[in-house]
């Protein structure tokens, strides 16, 4: 074992807690003071993508919107995307009107009609999307809690879920800080992170349970720390192979998928970190407070003292 790397992860818990504490504090502060920018899916409105054409400026698009009778053309946001399109957002939530306005704009600027998307969301839709996402989130977390409690123990499931909440908060925090728009894709990504972030945690917990079944010569924390080190390569590599495809998605996946990949990327990195930094540390502290592990620790300390004298 000596030639392999051995890191005292659990001994450095204060560093982990400090990092996580700062990240979470910043996230919560950003969520409170800056807030999230919600996409049209949550408040109703229209997003159009139009292929750009040489010589046509964003201002011309805005003028065309005004001519087409879009009520808030002045406040419409017009962005240019990397793949040469305009992303136009307006508050129009009537699909027929949005479609008519869009046709007028395309005619006015003689843009290709082939390369477009028009998405219109009615005002009530956001509520049902949010409600269904929250239901999915709640049910997921409950199911995960139940599954881990049955397969392992409830202390593992509570700490695993704490790590999840940690990851979700950080993802949302980064959205608030960067001002990126929260879309249903973001919500889907968040829900997926639940599963992925748990993957590493389960791998680590599995080993901890295996190593602490008949514990006599080590304290719980020592055994847990050994476990983390034993699965270190697994932890790093499984995280890498999950992060690699998502990174590819972020760089090559085009506008829609990029949005999705961003949330996933942040969540996965946070998830990989939190399975050791948060979940394992809290779990070890919690287990150490159990009488039998307290006794074990006392015994180990006495032994060490005897050896020293």
């Amino acid at each position: 074992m000596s030639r392999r790397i051995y890191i005292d992860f659990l001994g450095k818990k204060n560093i982990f807690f400090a990092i996580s504490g700062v990240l979470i504090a910043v996230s919560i502060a950003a969520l409170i003071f800056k807030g999230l920018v919600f996409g049209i899916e949550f408040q109703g409105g229209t997003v159009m993508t139009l292929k750009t054409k040489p010589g046509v400026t964003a201002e011309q698009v805005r003028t065309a919107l005004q001519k087409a009778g879009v009520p808030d053309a002045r406040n419409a946001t017009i962005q240019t995307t990397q793949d040469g399109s305009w992303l136009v957002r307006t508050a129009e939530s009537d699909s027929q009107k949005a479609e008519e306005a869009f046709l007028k704009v395309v005619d006015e600027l003689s843009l290709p009609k082939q390369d477009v998307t028009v998405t219109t969301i009615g005002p009530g839709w956001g509520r049902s999307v949010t409600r269904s996402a929250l239901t999915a989130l709640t049910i997921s977390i409950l199911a995960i809690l139940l599954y881990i409690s049955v397969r392992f123990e409830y202390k593992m499931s509570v700490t695993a879920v704490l790590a999840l909440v940690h990851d979700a908060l950080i993802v949302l925090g980064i959205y608030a800080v960067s001002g990126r728009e929260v879309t249903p894709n973001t919500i889907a990504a968040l829900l997926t992170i639940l599963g992925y972030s748990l993957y590493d945690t389960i791998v680590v917990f599995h080993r901890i349970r295996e190593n602490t079944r008949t514990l006599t010569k080590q304290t719980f924390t020592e055994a847990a720390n050994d476990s983390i080190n034993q699965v270190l390569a697994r932890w790093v590599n499984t995280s890498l192979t999950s992060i690699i495809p998502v990174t590819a998605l972020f760089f090559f996946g085009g506008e829609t998928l990029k949005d999705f990949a961003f949330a996933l990327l942040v969540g996965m990195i946070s998830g990989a970190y939190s399975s050791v930094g948060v979940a394992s540390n809290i779990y070890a502290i919690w287990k150490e407070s159990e009488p039998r592990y307290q006794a074990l620790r006392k015994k180990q300390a006495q032994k060490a003292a005897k050896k020293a004298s």
Partner: protein
Amino acid sequence: MDDKSKNVLALGIVLVLVALSWWAFWPLDKKISQGLDLRGGLSVILTAEPAPGQPLTEDMMNRAETILTERVNALGVSEASVQRSGADALLVQIPGIKDSREALKTLGSTGRLDFVDARSITATDVALEYGAVLPEGAYPESAIIVTGANVKSAGVTVDQSNRPAVSLDFDKQGADAWAKYTTANVGQAIVITLDGVVQSVATIRQPITDGKTMISGTFTAEEAKRLAAVLQAGALPVKLTPSSTQIVGPTLGQESLKQGLLAGLAGFGLVALFMLVYYRGFGLLSWFSLASYLSLLFGIIALLSRAGAYSLSLPGVAGLVLTVGLAADSSILIFERFKEEVRMGKTFRSAAKSGTRHALITSLNADLVTLVSAIAIFIFAIGPVKGFALTLALGIVCDLFVAFLFTRSAVMLLAESVVHKAPALFGVKGGQDV
């Protein structure tokens, strides 16, 4: 059966299934149906809004679904679909549609057709002509002579001056009422309204006793077709409002698909490279695991596609890319555990047997947790996210299958032969002879 023959059998089963999958999904673009966000078209989610105080029943939704299906079919587009989406919404998908405005009008209208005595219309400030919008309550119920509910069939035709018109055939009750009224009121003007919009103003020239009549006006052929479609299908039992509408141009969708696939290939390539560099011989083995995994997944997707239960959407592509990482994860767990047990001094054979078993239990637990959240998303989330969750869930199932039958068996077979002879090629250190 001893372990060796069991493993050979398992590999054989996977091989056969992979071959079957290829047969099922090749050529990909023909066998896997694409969602509208990829091939272009109109996609609308219509949410039911019952009148105040009126509960929304399952029966109303089923009826609305049938009516919408008829209307969509009457538009003359192929491969259109109407699906239930949650308790109070319907998802309508019309691929490659040219006139999305007409389609939106057809889908959205409630379809209440009234034949009204012109004298009874109280809204005096509205000019009675085609397209005029009458305010609610512009005429009393008693002024309605017949309604769309009495229409047995409707079709497109032309009137005497060769303009597009809609022909109607009333049922027995409608024909009687129509005959009685037209006999008594020759020379009188009647107004035909659809959802409060005037379709036609006509004067009764002679009694109509055979229950056949024609609505002619100044509408275009397209509009006549739409009106006929709405009348033929009947009125909706509940008001449907579009809550999410997406129109995707055909080339843009294909571009997104290309980008998604490029990202998938890049991700797959990089993961494969990483596996080879880190795990060497086992990395090579993981290529076969990944290839079998993708084959099986595509095979299942193709079968579901054929049954109409799956179409690949952009979020689905994201799901596909993601599961590549997931599939690599289970190989990693197996290889690492094997190497660890060899390091601890076990023989190659017993390390392969117990190591892969332990790794699979870990993998199973970790995968099942992801599966749980994928299923929860699939059941409770609405909209495009569903396609993502379904792809993810299918991926997890395929991954477990391949890890269990293919990767595990292959490691056990290789451990006794190649790995034992040249452990360095597989990055294995230590261990005892078999």
